[in-house]
């Protein structure tokens, strides 16, 4: 199966293991390998998860209250933002806030119903990784990153709006 993870403009293998666990799951059995957990699980079991060594990433559902993670942003080396339907654009604001307000510098990954036609905007608000669903051409999706030669408004990828960069 071809790789479907785009990271920093290239197709790469995914080193993260995504765990779908309920909030009362047994956490004792977790390995030290990088694990991606629902953000709600992090909030519910924060103390136990803090005691674990090994990288942790959290995955944010569309309505997840980002503010509740504010203290912990620096602890994650991966934050995934879920797009169950691409027409639900809340994740774009989530990404903007993570990059521009909370100063998150790690991998910010768009997950779910994403493809070529969302790539340009996703990249602009700060995503640097994209998990293209199986069945969609990830090589093709890469093309979407270069749809436009320039942009008017500031965003995470270029905080200066065009009017502060325009060569007159």
């Amino acid at each position: 199966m071809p790789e479907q993870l785009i990271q920093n403009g290239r197709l790469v293998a995914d080193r993260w293991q995504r765990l779908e666990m309920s909030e009362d799951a047994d956490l004792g059995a977790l390995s030290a390998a990088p694990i991606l957990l629902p953000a709600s699980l992090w909030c519910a079991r924060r103390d136990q998860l803090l005691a674990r060594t090994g990288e942790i990433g959290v995955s944010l559902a569309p309505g997840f209250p980002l503010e509740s993670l504010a203290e912990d942003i620096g602890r994650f080396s991966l934050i995934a933002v879920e797009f169950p339907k691409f027409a639900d654009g809340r994740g774009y604001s989530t990404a903007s806030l993570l990059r521009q307000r909370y100063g998150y510098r790690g991998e910010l990954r768009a997950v779910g119903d994403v493809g070529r036609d969302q790539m340009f905007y996703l990249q602009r608000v700060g995503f640097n990784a994209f998990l293209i669903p199986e069945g969609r051409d990830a090589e093709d999706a890469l093309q979407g990153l270069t749809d436009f030669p320039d942009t008017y408004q500031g965003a995470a990828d270029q905080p200066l709006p065009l009017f502060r960069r325009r060569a007159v």
Partner: protein
Amino acid sequence: MYHYDDYDRSIVSARVKQFRGQTGRFLAGKLSEDEFRPLRLQNGLYIQRHGPMLRIAIPYGQLSSAQLRTLASIARDFDRDVGHFTTRQNMQLNWVKLPEVPDILERLANAEMHAIQTSGNCIRNITSDPFSGVAGDEIADPRPWAEILRQWSTFHPEFAYLPRKFKVAISGATEDRAAIQVHDLGLQLVKNEAGELGFTVYAGGGLGRTPLIGQKIRDFLPWQHLLTYSEALVRIYNRYGRRDNMYKARIKILVKALGSAEFARQVEAEWAYLKDGPQTLTAAEVERVAMQFAPPRYARLAAENLTHLVDQHGEKAFARWVERNVKPHKVPGYAAVTLSLKQPGRAPGDATSAQMYAAADLADRFSFGEIRVTHEQNLVLADVEQRELHTLWQQAKAAGLASANIGLLADMIVCPGGDFCSLANAKSLPIAAAVQERFADLDYLFDIGNLALNISGCMNSCGHHHLGAIGILGVDKHGEEWYQITLGGTQGNAARIGEVIGRSFAAAEVPDVIERLVAVYLSHRHAGEEFNETLARIGLEPFRAAAYRKDAEIGEPAYA
């Protein structure tokens, strides 16, 4: 007017290329209908009853004569020689073919135009006052601010998938001619006590299924903060607007649910992080854009006495046209002229290619080559020398653009309705035509005077029926088309939503009902009183009684 530079050109061209690719992938079966829908919508392309409808953006209603000729050529080459001007100052084509749309967009791009974000759940075309720059009551020209907002909102990466569409209108005059209080975001240019320019901000207005007047959420926003504040406001909406029910997804529902004070508080809290950041506007940028809206080179003229001018010619038709279609101008010797797109036998707001070419020629000859589109679906030549009015009138008449009916009942706002639109519950054009026919007598129309009659073919309210002194709304009852009547709606500073008078009418009854409502007004009005004033004084009841009166000749109004 604003001209593209290399940045603008390259961005719009890239959009054409992108959409050409998306259309190609869709036609090749590589994009599903669900995947393609939001992409085509954000390029103004709907799938309608007869095929695709393309909505072309006319930012804040401003066109050069060259751009209007481009629209005429597109209507001629890709449609059926006719375009429809909309209540959001855009133009719609009803008979385009999907594979040809990229070519249309390319032709538009060559004329510095596009169809970007004319539909879809994003920030739509920004509308404004058609008399901007020339009105005597102007505080500041809204067009530079509209253009600055157009650029900020174009391909805004965070706001392409909002809960629902988002419409912005901006007014720079003391009289609101841009209907800012029925927009998601309404901006009123104002000066504070220190004489500094800024905006009074309204949010949560809108028509549609739940008509609401916008709430004032900030008295004075200094101009420097227009973009950061707007970004904060739209972000609050993007994060917290409802997405579970498309009928409750507009920002007005959020503002109503939170209360305007709490909504304003949340926007302010968000704005605190963005304020004074890099998107804070600079005087240099405002100057760069404003320069492009500098006044044309007016001749030094003495103000004409229009009464004398009219008397000189001694033509009643000209006198009437001057009375209705000519507005004052802030520069002596000039006038703003409305070219009416409301003629018997033609859909309101429609212009043929020939009429568009003719209007472009008139603009070149009489008005510095510029045209504005009004949200009442007419065209405006904003800078006409008063001494040229008679010549202009003759030429406009020859082109079928001189109906002397601006503001009269015949100057109806009407959506395309069920003849074209797949959202519509009922036809609106035949209703408009029937009412037009009933009120064909110009003497009668002049006697009635100012009267806003607005017709929408469905709850989406593109025809602004809520804002008509008389509003007509097409509704579906068990698969049949019926028409609900509202009275007392008003646009502008005292914007008000009309009140439903009662059960709906069948299509055939509508002209009679309108005639009876007008008769009640005429029989009760005091001198100088407009329809809504009489209504406010005598109440709804006399109108209701007349509308539902049993009448042997026409039969009892049917129940629906």
